[in-house]
Structure formats: structure tokens, C-alpha cells
């Protein structure tokens, strides 16, 4: 028999009950009772969305208990950490179809509800045997605990549920991903990712690392199945279909540091709030077929260290000609150790042209007039009439001969006369010959291609258009007092809010 707690009541028949600041009766523990396992899972899902389950450890226990009538039920026991927690648990349990009790030790009384806003107390304690005694408004039921289910085991046993398709049709979320591949597919996937990473080099491109792992086995006689594990950052959207639809490849989305779930699925329980249930030294990969545990945590190596490097093929040496030897030599660019003259030009690659644009805002007027630029296929060539200053990036050039440019710190060998160089290379009539580096072939820039920098940077100016006169802007008087009116928040008021990270 239960009796409602009244305001100001401080003595209770059930041991362990106390009234909090609001006058609500609560014990040191809560017990949530569920008739079926699916209701228990629903409760944990609702609770994990509102509350971090790690905060309830180590007191959280899930037990199977048999009641007086012979029914077997699941009971969740947890400590009461804060006054608001009990209400959260009660709401979640009610939504999941369970009942909430509060108490200490083995005696529990029904938690408060609409009929008893401050809670219940027992009229008198009954002397019944049992591991748990739950005093409800209808009856008092003693329970014998038959077994205990660790939360970690429950989390590993639950099947995944299909997730909703993402907005915009994207198959995979942004952020890092894990990809597992059969042994035979691993090297090919590594090479594919490596080529993609090279193609995107220089910007915010794809990065990948991999390791060869073995799944944990339950038997010492069973051979562990090995597989490749890749961690991919910034996977381009165009690769999503390939990775998700290729047999032998499985994609996983990390939810916490050492737990990942198969793409397109979600776990019934918010695993982000159950970090403590997963050992830090194991990696857990949840897939529709089960959970793969990798222990210890794999050490991933960069993809560039895994891709096989082919030795260059040995070419058959050409037979030496039997005719007289020719004295002509190829012109070579060699390092000279020091600069022979001032820097007169710079070749800025196209991916650095935005820097050049920003720099143009700071260049003095003399520089804008004296410098000439030519947009080329490999970049923008900036040439100064005397000395190039203020451009510290790109490839800098000095003069090896009039209108013959070589990288700063290099020289042309054999050291023929500058006039001969100019004549033979065609650096006449204002043309400029550029040796871009020590190995590349020289190229010529026509005189007409070089235009003053100030002409290039100013672009096409549009004449300013007159501002319109606005005389039809409507105002509305403001002056009434601003008063807060708190409205009911409803159940689950934090639904839709992101869970804050410990750093925030």
C-alpha cells in the first residue's frame, strides 16, 4: 500500500528516501522495470540521447529478475547523480513502456507521477524475501535476480538498424572513415587511394593510412581472418559509390575514437554516450553481420609508405655509333653555389597566383609600372626591368645572358659567351628564354606576351552607377516593454540539440 508524500514531509517509512530541494522524494538509486528486452533497448536509446550513460557508471546494472508471479523482467539499476536525472529517467522509462522506482538497497517505491507530484512512500514495510522488492501502486512484487547482463555485452549483441538516407543524396558523411578490405583487395585499394591523394596534393586533399589486422577469435584453434584496415580523411564524393558498392570492401563511420558503425546503419543506442563500455585498447567495427573486434589498436601507416615502389626498368644501352665522335654538347643547368646577379624574374605557379594578387595590393606604384607579367601554361612570369623585389615565392630567376633566365644559384654549362647564347637560344627582339629548372627544357616567352603589371591587375573597371534614392522604407513604432514568457518545453526538450563535447 502506498501513500502520497505531502509537502514538508521529512520522515519516510521506506529507508533511504529523502526529499530534495523541490520536495520530491528520491532515494540513492533508481530502478526501471521492463517486461521485454525491446522495451529495455528503447529505454536505453531514449536515455542515451538525453544523458551520458558513462556518467551512470559504475553503478549502472542490468539484471534479469523473476517476480513473485513467475514472470521474468529486465530491471535497470542506476545511481541518482542529480535531482534532474530521476525525472529524465522516469520520462524515458514511461515512453519506453516501463515503470520507475526509487529507493536504496533492495527496497524501492514507485517514483512520482501525475497523481503524486512529490512521490510515494510505503504505508508500512513488508517482510518478504527477495533480492529486490518493488512497491508499486497496484501491488508489491519481490524479485529474485537470476542473471546480470553487462551493458557492454548488450551493446555488442544488438543488431544495427538501417539509417535514413542523408540530405542531398550523399552516401557517406564528411569526416574520417574506416574501410576494410579483403587481403587481396588491400594493395589495389592502397594504390588507388595513393593516386587519388597525389592528384589532390597541395590542397585539402585525401589522406589515408592503413594497417593489416586480424580479427579476434573465440577459439585458439580457429585461424584469425586477416584484412586490411584503411582510415581515410576527406574522401571525395565521387569515390563514395566505389567504396560502398565494391564486394570485399566495407565502409565504417566512426562514432567514437575506437568504435565505428557500417555506413548506412546506426546502432539502436547512442554509442557516443557509452564510451566507457568499450575498452580503449580494442577497435570495434559494427556491421550488419556482427561486431569485429581488433585488439590491440592497429597502428596505421601512411598510404605512401605502403604502396609498392617499382624499380625503374633497366633500358638496353644503345650501341655506340661507329662514326666520328661529335663535339656538340647539350646545354645544362648546374648549381653554382652563389647568385651571380640580382633577381630579375619570378615564375609563380597558378596555385600561388592568389598570393600574388594579394601582394599586388601592397606593391608600390613604381613596382606596378616596372614589372611585366606574362600568363603562361605553367604559371605567371613576372619580369622586372632591373631588380625584382617584394615577391618571395615561386621560382626566382637571374640573368645568365641578356634575356636568358636561369634559376637563382645556377649557371649554364658549358660557359659559352652570352652573345652566343642569346643568338643560339633565340633570345632576341625582346624575347625571353627561361630555363625553368635544372632538368626541364627551356621555353621562350614572346616580347608581346609581357605586359605591364599595372595593366593586368586593374582589370576592366565598370563605371560607378548612381545609388538609388530610397524613400519608401517603412518603419513601425517600437517601444512596448519586452517581457519573457516561458512556455512549456514538452517532453524531450533537448531533442535535436547536439551533444556537447568535453572540450566545449
Amino acid at each position: 500500500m502506498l501513500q502520497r508524500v505531502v509537502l514538508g514531509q521529512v520522515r519516510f517509512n521506506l529507508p533511504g528516501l529523502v526529499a530534495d530541494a523541490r520536495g520530491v522524494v528520491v532515494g540513492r538509486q533508481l530502478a526501471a522495470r521492463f517486461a521485454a528486452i525491446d522495451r529495455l533497448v528503447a529505454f536505453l536509446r531514449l536515455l542515451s540521447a538525453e544523458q551520458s550513460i558513462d556518467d551512470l557508471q559504475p553503478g549502472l546494472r542490468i539484471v534479469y529478475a523473476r517476480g513473485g508471479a513467475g514472470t521474468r523482467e529486465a530491471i535497470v539499476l542506476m545511481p541518482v547523480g542529480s535531482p534532474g536525472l530521476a525525472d529524465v529517467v522516469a520520462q524515458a522509462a514511461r515512453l519506453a513502456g516501463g515503470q520507475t522506482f526509487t529507493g536504496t538497497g533492495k527496497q524501492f517505491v514507485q517514483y512520482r507521477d501525475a497523481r503524486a507530484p512529490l512521490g510515494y512512500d510505503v504505508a508500512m514495510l513488508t517482510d518478504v524475501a527477495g533480492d529486490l522488492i518493488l512497491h508499486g501502486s497496484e501491488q508489491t512484487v519481490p524479485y529474485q535476480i537470476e542473471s546480470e547482463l553487462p551493458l557492454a555485452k548488450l551493446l555488442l549483441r544488438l543488431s544495427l538498424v538501417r539509417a535514413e538516407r542523408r540530405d542531398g543524396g550523399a552516401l557517406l558523411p564528411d569526416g574520417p572513415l574506416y574501410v576494410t578490405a579483403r587481403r587481396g583487395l588491400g594493395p589495389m585499394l592502397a594504390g588507388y587511394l595513393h593516386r587519388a591523394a597525389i592528384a589532390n596534393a597541395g590542397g585539402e586533399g585525401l589522406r589515408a593510412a592503413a594497417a593489416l589486422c586480424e580479427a579476434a577469435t573465440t577459439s585458439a584453434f580457429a585461424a584469425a581472418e586477416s584484412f586490411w584496415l584503411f582510415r581515410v580523411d576527406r574522401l571525395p564524393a565521387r569515390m563514395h559509390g566505389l567504396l560502398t558498392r565494391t564486394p570485399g570492401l566495407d565502409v565504417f563511420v566512426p562514432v567514437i575514437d575506437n568504435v565505428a558503425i557500417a555506413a548506412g546503419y546506426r546502432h539502436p543506442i547512442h554509442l557516443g554516450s557509452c564510451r566507457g563500455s568499450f575498452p580503449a585498447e580494442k577497435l570495434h567495427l559494427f556491421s550488419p553481420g556482427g561486431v569485429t573486434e581488433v585488439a590491440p589498436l592497429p597502428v596505421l601507416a601512411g598510404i605512401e609508405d605502403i604502396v609498392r615502389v617499382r624499380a625503374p626498368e633497366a633500358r638496353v644501352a644503345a650501341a655506340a655509333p661507329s662514326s666520328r665522335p661529335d663535339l656538340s654538347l647539350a646545354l645544362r643547368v648546374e648549381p653554382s653555389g652563389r647568385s651571380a646577379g640580382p633577381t630579375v624574374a619570378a615564375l609563380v605557379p597558378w596555385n600561388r597566383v592568389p598570393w600574388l594578387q594579394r601582394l599586388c595590393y601592397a606593391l608600390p606604384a613604381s613596382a606596378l609600372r616596372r614589372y611585366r607579367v606574362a600568363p603562361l601554361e605553367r604559371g605567371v612570369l613576372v619580369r622586372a626591368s632591373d631588380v625584382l623585389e617584394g615577391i618571395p615565392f615561386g621560382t626566382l630567376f637571374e640573368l645568365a645572358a641578356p634575356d636568358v633566365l636561369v634559376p637563382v644559384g645556377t649557371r649554364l654549362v658549358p660557359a659559352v659567351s652570352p652573345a652566343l647564347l642569346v643568338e643560339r637560344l633565340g633570345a632576341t627582339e625582346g624575347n625571353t628564354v627561361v630555363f625553368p629548372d635544372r632538368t626541364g627544357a627551356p621555353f621562350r616567352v614572346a616580347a608581346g606576351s609581357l605586359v605591364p603589371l599595372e595593366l593586368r591587375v586593374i582589370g576592366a573597371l565598370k563605371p560607378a552607377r548612381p545609388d538609388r534614392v530610397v524613400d519608401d522604407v517603412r518603419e513601425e513604432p517600437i517601444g512596448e516593454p519586452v517581457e519573457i514568457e516561458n512556455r512549456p518545453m514538452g517532453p524531450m526538450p533537448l531533442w535535436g540539440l547536439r551533444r556537447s563535447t568535453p572540450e566545449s
Partner: protein
Amino acid sequence: MRRFVSDFLLPVVRGGAVHVGRPIGLPAVDRMLRDLPLVEGAALDRLAACRIASGTRVAPVVAPPPFDETTVRLAAALHDLLALGHPELGGTRSRRTDRVAAAALELASVGAPRSASEAVNRHSLLARLPEIVRVDRTVHFWLGRQTFVGRRVPPRVTALPTLRRVRVEQTSRSWLREIGIPVVGRQAFLALNVASPLGEALDPLRLEPPIAWGRILPVLRFPTLARVVAGQAVAIGVDRSGDALADALYRFASFHDPPPGQPGIDASPEAIAFALRFLAHVVWLDVLFGTSAERPESADIDRSLEPGVDLAVMLTAASRTARTLVWPADVADSGDLADAFKARLDALAKRAHIHGMPRYSAAVGIAELAAAPTTSPAAFTV
């Protein structure tokens, strides 16, 4: 779809009952941007008209402020800050309020305004933030009493007033000044001030959180708005507003405002010099247009607790360190105006000497930092 514009945004700008309900997160912003113009078109028009009226108080507004993502985010951040005091959240120390405060911080982190019109548009939304009040009503009746925090009393509670001896007490308190921002929401409120610094700049006497140069400098760099802020400082009173700004300059120059990791401009010689010149500009305006007469200072009369001492100390230190910090380049050294300002400087110096010497050395250090050339190593020493 929640009537966010009619029930919350419009009352915040125009006045009326501001409905505070379920907290709003960043994922809801896109949904609201998409659906609100369809559902509340008329309310949006009225909101734009009210924002024009609000913005016109500080600067001419030639186009209605846009209803964009920044507007919704700032409004949602304000809503979540107000929700921290909602009785259903379970108090300001619960885990729920941590999440709500984190959501408010995420929403408010839009950065400082990039143009004067953007600053005015944002201010038009939050201009009446200091005027928000919460009315708590306690109904006494024959069996006890019941308190409604920020809620209207349901009619059933006040039914049969004579028989049940019903008596209603209500207390109206300013949300910003009396109730205050909960500690958990402080970061979000600071982020809101960074997003709309004009409100803070126009309220230099605010006690908590106090005015910070790191947050208001982004809006003072727009000449139009700097003039508005200076005019407001003169209207409040040069001594009182100058003291608050001078006090904030000590914190700014010692890198206490903003704290490390918080948004805002860090102190640099140029920023400190600008702040000193702004303070001097306020005094110039008072010399030109003010009506307050300087009372003669005397060592026998203790006026150290009256406002104006910190301003006097700071400007005296600045004028003695580098004249350019207090004297505009285009104002002549002679003439009636120059004489009047010199007289004011002398009065400030006398007042600083009598009442403010403990802080004078710190003020001199700040002025030297501001006056040091940027290539000098001394400019970067503390």
C-alpha cells in the same frame, strides 16, 4: 512549424511577450530559413519594419535588414540564453543547461560584423536586449502559494479570488542586469556580443560582463558608428563613460580582455593607440558641445570616488607620453578650441595627480606601448 518570428523575434525587436520554449540547435536553423518565409511572411514584413526603426536610431537605414542565416542564428542564440532560466530545465547547474549553453555558443559564433551596415543590421535585432524583463508572479491563496517564473498565471489559479483569498504579487526584474547571465551561458553571451558589438559599445556602464575593447573595436573602426558611440558616451556623461572605457583599457592592454582562446581583437600598439584617441575624442566632443562645467580640484576635498578619475589618469598619461595620442593632427595648437582643450587637460592632470597616482604608472606604460613605433622591440614588451 514553430512561429519563431511572431512569438519570439518580433517581440524582441518591437516589444511584447517573448515566448521562450524548447531550445533551438544549429540543425534547426536551415529548416527555419527555409520554412519561416513561407509560413510567416506577414510577420517577416513587420519584423523588417521594426528593425528599420530600431536601426535608424543609430544610423540611417536605406534597405530593410535581410532575414538571413546570421539573423536566425543570433535570434536562436538569444532564445537559448533566455531558455537557460526556464524553470523546466532544472536549474543552471544541470547537464541540460550545459547542452543548451553549448548550442547557444555554437549559434552565436558568427564572428564580428564585416561592414557598418551589417553591424547596424545585427544591432537592430538585439538593440533591446538590455530592456528584456522577466516578471515572476506569486499567487497567494488560502492553501498556500504558487510561483510562476516568467509565466502568466493560469485563470484557474486565480478563480474565486474573494472566497479563496487570492492575492498576486509580481516582481519585474531586468534579465541582463538583475537576473544576470548564468555562468554556464557566459561564453555564449560573450560570443553574442562579439557578433553584435554595437550594443556593448553603446552601453559602456554595463557591469557584467564589463565592456571590453577587444569586442567593440571591430565596430569602432567604422567612422559612422564610432561617431555614434562617442556621441552616446557624451550623452551618458563623459566622466562615467570615460571611466568605464579607461578601466576596460587596463584589462585590454594587459591581455585580460578577451581571455586567451576567446573571440575578439588582441591588444596591439595600434589598437591601444586607437582606444586612447577615442577617449580623447570623447573629451574633445565634451569640450565642444558639453554643458558640464569643471569643478575646481582641491587636495582638501576627497573626490576620488566621483566618476572621472580613471579617465583623467589615462588621458594625462597619454598626453604626457605622446601628444599625438590626444591631439588630432588637423587641429591647430592655438585658438579658442585649443585653449579650451588645454585647460581641460590641465584639469584632468590635476585631478589625476590628486586622486589617481596609484594607477598612473600603469597608464603611462599603456601610453608608451601605444606610442612606440611598430618596428621597435619595445612596442611588444609588456
